[in-house]
């Protein structure tokens, strides 16, 4: 029996899906193999993201260990590489507790609702040429939509735990997510204008010059905004250990806690993957037709390193400083970037409405000037806004004492 996907099927462009579908189609009826191939793709995606999250948890603990001038996990396996496995076994064998006053059903759904967006986000990211699971023509919007599910999950965790600290963490987390959504979306508009499309494949192929050179301001805003949306230091007010213990996941233990942790580490990887696609040229590079995946992984590694670096270096901000940073610093920057990009595209594009490489280099030059001036001016302005409320008497204030 030979099964062939119709030419109008949206999965026809996905090589891996087609191969699995046709291979299974020799054994099973076409309808069944359609489902089997879909399930196989889902398994690959989910396992890829979760294994990556495990590996990244080890990398980050080692890296932060080095930053803190200590060693980090190094006992089990080569360089301690099997540490995530040990952690997993430990968490799986622990008791899975549910607080007495908790809303049991909602409490149990939360870990799944946390992991799902992280995995779903990867579905539209092209790992190499023609390898995205689906090449959606609304790719960028899809990513934004899927990430917004996380705020619901955080809210569910806070509400269902029946714990004041969890509720504090959840309201802080949602406030941060809602605030940072705005500058992040605004910074992506510049990319969409340049690429003339929301499909991630088109964005990659439009990057004759990587967009972090053409859009330095948008790249900075997106990096800072994503770092805040991922709830990582210096933006981790939602789970600030010294203030509200662990925030929204305080009551979680055992396998549910493992899933929430996997979602947090996996989110760093998927956010890096999205950023690589939008700003660093995706899979493009020398010999991209067969080394594209290697370039992609390398760039993800670089960005994940930057995230760990930021986490190890900066102290935590207060919640009011955090929101001021979003509304008074990142939002104006992203609006300026959007305005500058729109003007440049209007004047530089040719009659057919396209931009060539020279145009992109000119824009890169102008935008770097704009970015430098803006960061200088706004950096001086924001200094006044985030000064601690009380009188400072020269002593070094720790973030906890500052309020």
């Amino acid at each position, binding site marked *: 029996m030979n099964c062939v996907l119709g030419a109008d099927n949206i999965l026809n462009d996905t090589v891996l899906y087609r191969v699995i579908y046709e291979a299974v189609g020799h054994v099973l009826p076409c309808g069944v193999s359609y489902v089997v191939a879909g399930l196989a793709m889902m398994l690959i995606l989910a396992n890829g993201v979760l294994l990556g999250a495990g590996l990244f948890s080890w990398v980050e603990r080692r890296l932060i260990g080095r930053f803190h001038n200590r060693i980090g996990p190094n006992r089990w396996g080569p360089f301690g590489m099997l540490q995530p496995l040990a952690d997993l076994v430990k968490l799986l064998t622990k008791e899975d507790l549910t607080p007495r006053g908790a809303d049991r059903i909602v409490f149990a759904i939360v870990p799944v609702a946390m992991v799902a967006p992280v995995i779903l986000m990867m579905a539209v990211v092209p790992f190499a040429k023609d390898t995205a699971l689906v090449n959606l023509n609304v790719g960028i919007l899809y990513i934004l939509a899927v990430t917004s599910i996380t705020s*619901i999950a955080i809210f569910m965790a806070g509400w269902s735990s029946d714990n004041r600290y969890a509720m504090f963490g959840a309201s802080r987390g949602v406030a941060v997510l809602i605030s940072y959504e705005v500058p992040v979306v605004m910074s992506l508009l510049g990319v969409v204008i340049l690429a003339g499309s929301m499909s991630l494949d088109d964005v990659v192929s439009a990057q004759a010059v990587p967009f972090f050179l053409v859009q330095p301001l948008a790249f900075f805003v997106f990096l800072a905004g994503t770092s805040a949306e991922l709830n990582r230091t210096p933006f981790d007010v939602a789970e600030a250990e010294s203030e509200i213990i662990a925030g929204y996941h305080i009551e979680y233990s055992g396998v549910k806690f493992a899933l929430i942790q996997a979602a947090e580490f996996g989110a760093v990887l998927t956010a890096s993957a999205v950023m690589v696609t939008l700003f660093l040229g995706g899979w493009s590079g020398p010999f991209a037709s067969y080394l594209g995946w290697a370039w992609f992984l390398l760039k993800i590694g670089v960005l994940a390193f930057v995230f760990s670096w930021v986490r190890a270096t900066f102290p935590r901000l207060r919640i009011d400083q955090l929101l001021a940073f979003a509304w008074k610093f990142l939002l104006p920057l992203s609006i300026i970037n959007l305005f500058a990009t729109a003007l440049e595209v209007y004047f530089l594009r040719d009659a057919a409405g396209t931009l060539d490489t020279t145009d992109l280099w000119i824009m890169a030059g102008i935008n770097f000037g704009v970015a430098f001036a803006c960061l200088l001016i706004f950096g001086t302005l924001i200094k006044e806004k985030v000064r601690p409320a009380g009188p400072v008497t020269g002593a070094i204030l720790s973030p906890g004492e500052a309020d």
Partner: protein
Amino acid sequence: MLFQDIVFWILAVMAIVGALGVVLVPNLFRAALLLIVVFVSVAGMFILLSAEFLAVVQILIYVGAIAILIIFAIMLTRDVQHGNLPNRMQIPAAVFAALLLTALVAVAVDTKWEFLPADQQDRAELIQVNALTTLTGEVLDDAGVSPEDQTEVQESGLADLLISDYVLPFEAVSVLLLAALIGALVLVRPNPGTGRG
């Protein structure tokens, strides 16, 4: 066709059970979560109709923004666990709901749903794609659109329509949102006399 039927029925049952849950579940927080289930099922319906843009916007706006707003509002209500106490408006509410349902069903049955003929189907798809991506002349040539029609396809995107034919409603909505924004700011501004909100 079989798979689409199965998916349709799953989504339909999800949407209806979710919608019933929203009105029948006493716990307000769970009711809000069930409302999200309804939104997601409707987004699934849009995907089934190959309207990815609508599906994504449905998730982005309804799940990402409106549901959060509803949950915030619920946190301000008096008794989340047991819902609001019943009042005397039950009969008027039932009458109004019945009237609304009748009107909607009557409109749905009465409308002549015209399907596009096959030759216009491709054209409609191109226009849909053009709402999100700027189609160049070459792509349109490949799709067999004659040069005279190309401008029409290129300028029929959602964005172009919003700032040409529908610019007045678009601006009116903007002004409305701005008014709401300023109103909210005025409401939460501390009273200058007492220094309290």
